[in-house]
């Protein structure tokens, strides 16, 4: 399996004058960006008709580096902005980059309702289990008992599972991987981009600066290894379940892949009927 060289990515997809990124040493956001661009390249998506939308957070800085239209909105609002972009010009490919806080905390409701509406956008959520940009506060995804700057005695709130939520609310495509799964990530992002309707790809990513440091998880390398160990592929998981076994590990893999009429299709249909 061969990968293309970075020079193609840099030349074709990046705003060179914006590099280097503001991300910390070993931050996983850069990896997810890299994977996403490779997926786009593979699909030969026209960057003139692609809009990257984001909220506020480290992860939300991604669109600033990508050479396409970009909409760096407000904290939590990326999906609502993206809904406007997509509905107003359905020709555009709309891709949202969002952090777990941006998507799941302040932005939780927009996430929910865009799924419900089945707006045809792809949301890539970089889940680093913490608020990176503001320096390491608890996120809705932070595991129980984890240390953050606002849970100095350990987190007592049950974390939310964004992908499971997306699944239950009815997103037609949902996948979760970690930065330690580049190939799978790229392949899922490709599928997501090809899906008509709301597609969601969650990528667990290391934030060594905040989450790693506060929870003594070592550097990016250590964290990446930890991801491998603390996750289980859905296929394996389902087998386990069938065998009556359970696990604490986080399920990764392709969680949903169905067909479902999206908002634009439905809207155009009834507009058509009106004429």
């Amino acid at each position, binding site marked *: 399996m061969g990968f293309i060289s970075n020079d193609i990515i840099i030349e074709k997809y990046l*705003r060179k*004058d*914006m590099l280097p990124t503001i991300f910390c040493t070993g931050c996983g956001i850069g990896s997810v960006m890299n994977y996403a661009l490779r997926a786009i390249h593979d699909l030969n998506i026209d*960057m*003139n*008709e692609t*809009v990257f*939308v984001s909220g506020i957070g480290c992860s939300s800085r991604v*669109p*600033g580096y990508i*050479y*396409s*239209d*970009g*909409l*760096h*909105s*407000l904290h939590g*609002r990326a999906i*609502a*902005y*993206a*809904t*406007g*972009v*997509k*509905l*107003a*010009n359905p*020709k*555009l490919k709309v891709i949202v980059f969002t952090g777990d806080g941006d998507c799941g905390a302040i932005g939780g*409701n*927009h996430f*929910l*309702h865009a799924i419900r*509406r089945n707006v045809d956008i792809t949301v890539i959520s970089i889940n680093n289990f913490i608020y990176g940009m503001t320096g390491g506060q608890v996120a809705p995804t932070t595991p129980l008992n984890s240390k953050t700057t606002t849970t100095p005695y350990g987190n007592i709130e049950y974390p939310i599972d964004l992908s499971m939520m997306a699944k239950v609310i009815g997103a037609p495509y949902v996948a979760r991987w970690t930065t330690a799964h580049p190939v799978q990530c790229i392949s899922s992002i490709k599928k997501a981009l090809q899906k008509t309707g709301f597609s969601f790809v969650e990528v667990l990513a290391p934030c060594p600066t905040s989450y790693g440091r506060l929870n003594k998880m070592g550097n990016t390398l250590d964290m990446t290894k930890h991801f491998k160990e603390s996750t289980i592929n859905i296929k394996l998981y389902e087998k386990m379940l069938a065998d009556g076994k359970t696990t604490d590990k986080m399920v990764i893999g392709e969680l949903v892949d169905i067909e479902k009429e999206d*908002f634009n299709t439905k*809207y155009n249909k*009834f*507009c058509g009927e*009106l004429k």
Partner: protein
Amino acid sequence: MTNDVIRLLGRKDLFIQGDDAAVYGALIADCRFFAGYPITPATEVAEGMALWMPKLGGVYVQMEDEIASIAAVIGASCTGVKSMTATSGPGFSLMQECIGYACMAEIPCVIVNVQRGGPSTGQPTEAAQGDVMQAMWGTHGDHQIIALAPKSVQETLDLTIEAFNLSEDYRVPVILLLDAEIGHMREKVVLPEVVNVKVDERVPATIGPDKYRPYRTGFTRTSKVPEFAPFGSGYRTYVTGLTHDKRGFPVTTSADVHEELVRRLIEKVQDDMDVIWYHEDLFLDDAEIIVISYGTTSRPAVSAVKMARKSGIKVGHIRLITIWPFHYEKMKELLKNAHTIIVPEMNLGQMVHPIRETVGKDIKVISAPKIGGAIHTPYEILKCIEEE
């Protein structure tokens, strides 16, 4: 487009309410995206849009709340589609963060605020003019919006078109300040003749994507408004609410970049004050007392001024049509011969502040507030005039 709309609307003389007039105005102005959330007394705007948009190839979407509504409107406007939302006080308060975004990123949009009694949920079905200061100062940080206030259903239609024009011309959110009274007031409305409707579009990029800088001004004009390349046009624009340079990229620790940007955002509007600032006046020539009003309140004010004139009082009237920006110089000029100014408002005194600021101590400025829902009667205003 406009043509089609006027044809679609059919019969030229309508008997419609203010909320409907805002809908028709928007349709005529080529608004083709509406995202909103119901709230008394603005709901009828959304309902009208839900009815019309699908017929005109536009999009109506009811979002999960007001924040999502204005967010979607901004997103839609980035694609070059004229976009609008409508709400009332509680929703307007919720929209403030995004309104600041639209100011900062220079994304045109029109926000209809059909004012009801506040603060808070207050009096949902009663009229008020309690959000006029908020319209100017509601979001954090220095900025400049445009706000317009019509006095009749006909003018609601006309000013909605104008709101879109100003928004596109200056790339700034424009707030149309209605109130529950006018929003639900029905009057005869004459649709404009197709040929008479002026519909502006934001200035498109005049140079190629390679040279284009989204926030550089002065490509082809001296104006401080940058040219616009919609999403999907190949210009690959980056839009952010962070302080950005002319390329649109975040530069958040440079005082110079910030100052240049924020000053321009304000000056692009204020420099054109003479064009933007609409007003109407009556009997000013020899007026010693001047009543200043806006919106619905102007109707009893004009009645009162006419009555007072009949009894020989030298009283005039100024109606503010453009509420913000406030034209301090022009107002100073208009008011220079008055000895007393009376400002009836359906709030406890808001526009009276910039008016006092304009004229200082020499001229007596009387605030004539009325709250609770009922609009001023002509007699109440007349009494204020007669007491002077």
